[in-house]
């Protein structure tokens, strides 16, 4: 076993596996194409069934009327083609010919959009700054790396539903948060404390994950780059802004992209922690609240949510150049 690898490599190069060598020959290339196709196709079919079909179906549903009383005529309609009326209902908050009255789901689109964006911006900003610091500490740790890695994985492994319940208890009126802060805040009782509680819980749960992603990016920066900068008289801050940040940028962008897309669909935390009350209803919560009051309208809302997230991802990749696939590849190579 100890001698075989080397011999094996040499033999492999001398043409024993015709499949991987001599890529130029067209019939072999097409053989790889065919094999690749056969191996890929089951997974792609599976994804089409579990994701493709529901998405197409949701788009079709979103152009159908929900059975019910038509608010403008007062007559019962049993469905039929709705055109863009479901989309108009959400985006312009129109219920029939009038503005949706406060308290109805129809009036909550823009408030939940702004809550979702608030959670995204607040959580991701804090998580990236905190995650960056954590990653720096972990990469420089002389000892205790195992302990660090272990403890960092704990918040990640806990189900979000449990995290929400845990922070619900911490933020209870008589709970430890008020006790430690010497405050008497009804955390889930009004808008900003409730939002604050959700952001804190989200930061606790996912910063470790960001830190691990950034750490992976930090570890492929060679040490001698820092040594050279030190010799050239760069301060710690200069080394951070001129070396660490530019070199860790690809990993950082991927982490930010993943987290952004993830918080945009946030559901579990606010749903359990605050019940979506006091300005913590996110787009996902609104869809779930709507689902039993009309599938088709809910489908329109979920399609809007999906398109919104897609747009954000597109802008991200286009303007920040977060090339996810390539970063993945180079990180794999770096890790090898």
């Amino acid at each position, binding site marked *: 076993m100890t001698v*075989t690898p080397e*011999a*094996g490599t040499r*033999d492999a190069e001398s043409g*024993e596996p015709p499949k991987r060598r001599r*890529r130029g020959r067209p019939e072999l290339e097409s053989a*790889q194409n065919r*094999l*690749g196709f056969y191996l890929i196709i*089951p*997974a*792609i079919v*599976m*994804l089409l069934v*579990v*994701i493709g079909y529901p*998405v197409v179906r949701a788009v079709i549903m979103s152009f159908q009327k929900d059975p019910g009383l038509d608010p403008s005529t007062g007559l019962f309609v049993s469905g039929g083609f709705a055109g863009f009326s479901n989309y108009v209902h959400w985006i312009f908050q129109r219920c029939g010919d009038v503005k949706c009255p406060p308290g109805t789901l129809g009036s909550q689109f823009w408030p939940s959009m702004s809550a979702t964006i608030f959670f995204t911006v607040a959580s991701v900003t804090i998580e990236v700054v905190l995650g960056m610091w*954590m990653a720096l*500490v972990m990469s420089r*740790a002389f000892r205790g790396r195992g*302990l660090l*890695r272990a*403890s960092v*994985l704990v*918040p*990640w*492994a*806990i189900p*979000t*539903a*449990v995290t929400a319940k845990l922070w619900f208890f*911490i933020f209870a009126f*008589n709970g*430890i948060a008020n*006790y430690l802060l010497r405050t008497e805040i009804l955390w889930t009782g009004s808008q900003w404390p409730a939002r604050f509680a959700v952001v804190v819980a989200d930061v*606790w749960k*996912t*910063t470790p994950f960001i830190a691990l992603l950034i750490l*992976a990016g930090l570890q492929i920066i060679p040490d*001698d*780059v820092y040594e050279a900068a*030190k*010799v050239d008289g760069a301060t710690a801050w200069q080394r951070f802004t*001129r070396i660490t940040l*530019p070199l860790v940028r690809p990993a950082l962008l991927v*982490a930010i992209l993943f987290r952004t897309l993830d918080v*945009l669909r946030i*559901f*579990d935390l606010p*749903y359990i922690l605050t019940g979506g009350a006091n300005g913590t209803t996110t787009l996902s919560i609104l*869809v*779930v609240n709507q689902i039993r009051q009309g599938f088709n309208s809910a*489908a329109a809302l*979920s399609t809007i*949510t*999906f398109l919104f997230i897609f747009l954000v991802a597109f802008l991200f990749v286009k303007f920040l150049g977060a090339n*996810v*696939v390539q970063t*993945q590849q180079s990180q*794999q190579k770096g890790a090898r």
Partner: protein
Amino acid sequence: MASTTTVEPGRAAAATRARTRTRPRGATAAKVRSYIGIVLIVLFCLAPFYWMIVTSFREVDFTFDNTPWPTHVTLDNYRTVFDTSLGNHFARALLNSAIIGVCTTILAVMFGVFAAYALARLDFRGKFVVLGVVLGASMFPGVALLTPLFQLFTNIGWIGTYQALIIPDISFALPLTIYVLTAFFAEMPWELEQAALVDGASPGQAFRKVILPLAAPGLFTTAILAFIAAWNEFLLASQLSSDRTQPVTVAIASFTGSQPHQEPYTAVMAAGTVVTVPLVILVLILQRRIVAGLTAGGVKG
């Protein structure tokens, strides 16, 4: 940038010398700072978890005792969790989660392993498109699937069945599996397969005796990640399950206590501990591999 990245041999030597010279004072300060950082991170990550466990062992009447160490210790909360007289079926929910998690994992790995092999080892047309599709799928918002699936499963009477929970879970477990496995496969020393063939092993033997043992840890880690993702899922399960099939995440969120309008905090913390501790132990045992899988796949758990 350019000036700092090019390191001449002479300079590198100077750097080493400079480092050894300044070690005593600078190194001690750095060490102290590093230790403070480590303590802060460990506190940040573990304090809330510790609080959950401490509370889970506290008598109900002392729920808001707020003493940082265990006081009024009791096992009553754990009895409450598994007590079915209050309408909670926690044991059944645990079993449901296990069934859903195991089935999802098996399906995801079964379908994912071939795709990952192709993505890691073969050059075929459209490879990057497939990678992009898989990554896009893993970032897909669950609510976009929820409405049509809810309608479909209601129509065909699947609400309250296991397949209604397993099939949607594939939507995130399969992309995750493909991504993490692709990363693992790309790092494997495949030359050993050729070596075995040269040494006279049949292709079957080479696969069984060389490739499988090498791939097993990666496969296992991937399976664990998929299982954790399915175990932790809440959104789809909260809408597509019935009382009979609901998993633990949904059970915990809707846990009821003996008093109708009072949140049974201590019992919920006990339930949370029961759900979490096995996962945490598993993760701690496999931490090195899980971190590798997480960062290579770059997928959220």
